[in-house]
């Protein structure tokens, strides 16, 4: 049965009538019209749907809306915009760290969670943090460079 789900996304609180087992991804994309999180596998394996739940990077394709509770959700749109990009977004542009770009939402959100608790990660830290985020175009090195660049920029 549908329930009233109250959820805070990118700083705004929404009340929606939804089945509590609906994956968060569909609420974000279809009810709120957000494009950042992508459907990749629906299995929590690829990372394309990654969002922040509080400070944690989670896979929105397997996170039921009924289990979100009071924790705020942050999507790619919530960290910066084309006009006012987050340092990670700026760094991904500067490093041209995308080909098709379908995985990039997950890369940036996973990296955001990393940089939020480790300000100066090593390459090995970055690789380990992104190990469960799949990229098929082979843009890995540019992504690593972009995360490194963002870390530098955020420290200075």
């Amino acid at each position, binding site marked *: 049965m549908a329930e009233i789900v109250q959820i805070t996304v990118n700083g705004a609180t929404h009340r929606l009538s939804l089945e509590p087992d609906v994956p968060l991804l569909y609420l974000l994309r279809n009810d709120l019209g957000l494009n950042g999180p992508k459907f990749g596998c629906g299995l929590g394996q690829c990372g394309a749907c990654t969002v922040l739940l509080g400070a944690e990077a989670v896979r929105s394709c397997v996170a039921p809306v009924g289990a979100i509770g009071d924790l705020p959700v942050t999507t790619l749109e919530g960290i910066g915009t084309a006009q006012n990009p987050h340092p990670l977004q700026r760094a991904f*542009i500067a490093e*041209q760290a995308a080909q098709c770009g379908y995985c990039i939402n997950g890369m940036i959100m996973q990296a955001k969670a990393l940089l939020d608790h480790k300000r100066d990660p090593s390459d090995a830290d970055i690789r380990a943090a992104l190990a469960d985020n799949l990229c*098929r*175009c082979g*843009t890995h090195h540019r992504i690593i460079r972009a995360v490194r660049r963002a870390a530098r920029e955020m420290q200075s």
Partner: protein
Amino acid sequence: MTVGLTRRRFGQGLGAVVLAFSLRPGLAVAEGEHLPGSLDKNRALDGWIRIDRDGGVTVFAGKVELGQGILTALRQIAAEELDIDLERLRIVSGDTTQTPNEGFTSGSQSIEQSGAALRLAAAEARAILLDLAAARLGASAERLTVADGVISTPEGGRTSYWELVGPDTFRRDATARAAPKPADAHKLVGKSLQRIDIPAKVTGGAIYVQDMRLPGMLFGRVVRPPSYGARLLGIDEAAFRRMPGVVAIARDGSFLGVVAAREEQAIAVRNAMRDAARWQNGPALPDAARIHDHLKSLPARSEVISEKQGPVAAAVQGLSASYTRPYLAHASIGPSCALARSDGGRLDLWTHTQGVFPLRRDLAAALAMPEDRIAVHHVQGSGCYGQNGADDVALDAALLARAVPGRAVKVQWMRDDEFAWEPFGPAMGMSVSADLAADGGIVDWRYEVWSNTHSTRPGRPGGVALLAAWHLDRPLAPPPPEIIPRPSGGGDRNAIPLYDLPQQRVTHHFIPEMPLRVSALRTLGAFANVFAIESFMDELAAAAGADPVEFRIRHLRDGRARDVINAAAAKAGWKPGRHGDGTHGQGLGFARYKNHASYVAIIADVAVDRASGVIRLEKVVAAVDSGQIINPDGLANQIEGGIIQAASWTLKEQVGFDRKGITSRDWDSYPILRFTEVPEIAVELLDRPNEPPLGVGEAAGGPVAAAIANAVAQATGKRLRDLPLVPARVKAAFA
């Protein structure tokens, strides 16, 4: 004027700066004359370029953005020739209602075909405008200069493209007679300009077809059969019509789909119907463990595609070996997606297909509609690397949209739909034998390759190439498979060695029967053929007691080929005569893609753990000659990506199947290379500003596989000839 009039010939004698070039009258295109690139089949000049009233310029391209950066490169080319700022230039691509028909965006040919056409069309448009300006300003065209579309005389006369252009200015056939700028006058071409699509991709802009939302849009999903050839015996459709959100259940023979108000509702119904449907299984698949023997046992059309006989030195030793590659998946990160709206006998379709016009042809055949009632619009999707489910899901969306007239329906495949139903890159077998003379030179080379076709794309007569069409109550069969013509070739792509050998015989065994669905995967047959040829070159070098670099150079007359091999060797610190220490090794692989496109040499460093069987790819060095470079950073991005994808194919990938069907249906059963596994990469670009620019997206694939296998052989003394080089296989080699 003759066929093959090249840019370089035009450029000769024009000097370093071409301020203006007037169209010379009397240089009409001769009957039957070919024009360069895609201009040949799309000659209407206004089909390529429009000067807009708002101060902009729009160019139209039939090639589409697949994440390879082509739209950025084409804008650079067009703005360069038009002498306008990039910001003024819009590009419209891949739309049956607006753009030229350039077939498929495939084969690393967009720069060659679309780039050549736009370059010449833009140069011609500029020349026409200069002639108009000359008349208006009372000056000869040679004395005019252009800056951002503003044309000036030395005396201060001024006009602009926007003042000069009329509705019919470009209503004429292109002649390709206006000389494009020489390379040394380029201001935009050759620069690493940033991609126009990346800002939206990193900030959540609506840029993918997955992000499209039309008013009143519904969501569709399709229930696929459990295996190839399975038939739907029955399902209680009424029960599913009552599930939450269902707007329509569409069934036609074994095609079964749902349209629902919400996406998760469509998915829930799809899963419930999948579990409830009763199917009659299709024919059993072959034994996966013996697939290459099975393929070789099937009837084949065999053709000797290269034969050379000549006087040769006496052979003192002979070698032979056989190699295989498995079925490989495109494995796009985002499952295929399309959006369709069917209204009053018209169909609008938004798709990430590689070819809007060929897709429209097959949609028309499948839906029994005239082509001019269907509009196909390209919108970006996830990277495809060849024919994934993009075209198939377009027909799915069209069929479901027909069930809800007037409503837009978005359909995205689920992860297992993509893995189980995409057409795979074909499994292949290669056998090669050669004789060496006393001086170590190759005196005779005999090569055979067995393969299915490498393209079952839409757009061919004799059937419909789209999945759902085969499942309809009145099924439309796929067209019979065809051999892709040389010189590019399919299974025989790069089967003819680039080496200069006195005697050779290359045979292509084309196998029409396809046990698994197959089509184009990045590089087609080149990946496997180069893997085999370049592995065997190392085996021959070892037999001849020669260094692999020297051995190749000695058999190559092509200077550009020698240059990339030497450049890679220098960059990688190649040491002739180096022996592996049992663990670490370095290996070389080289090819000229399709034997007529980019040159790539790869040197790989590996570390082999004999206990676990894990090959760690530590470093890959690439040297690349792709002629004139349009965008160096874009080129490097494509090369890096090609290296990592090929390394993933080589080390990890194979489609799993058993007698009942495809078993690799998610990322656990079809693993790809991860961040923790990607090698360090160094790319050296050899710019050839006076050679035609060549595509590069696929050029690194084969050399990477061979370089890895050669490095493993150098490290351990074990030659691995069957891909992928997974731990179980590596361990078995040491057992």
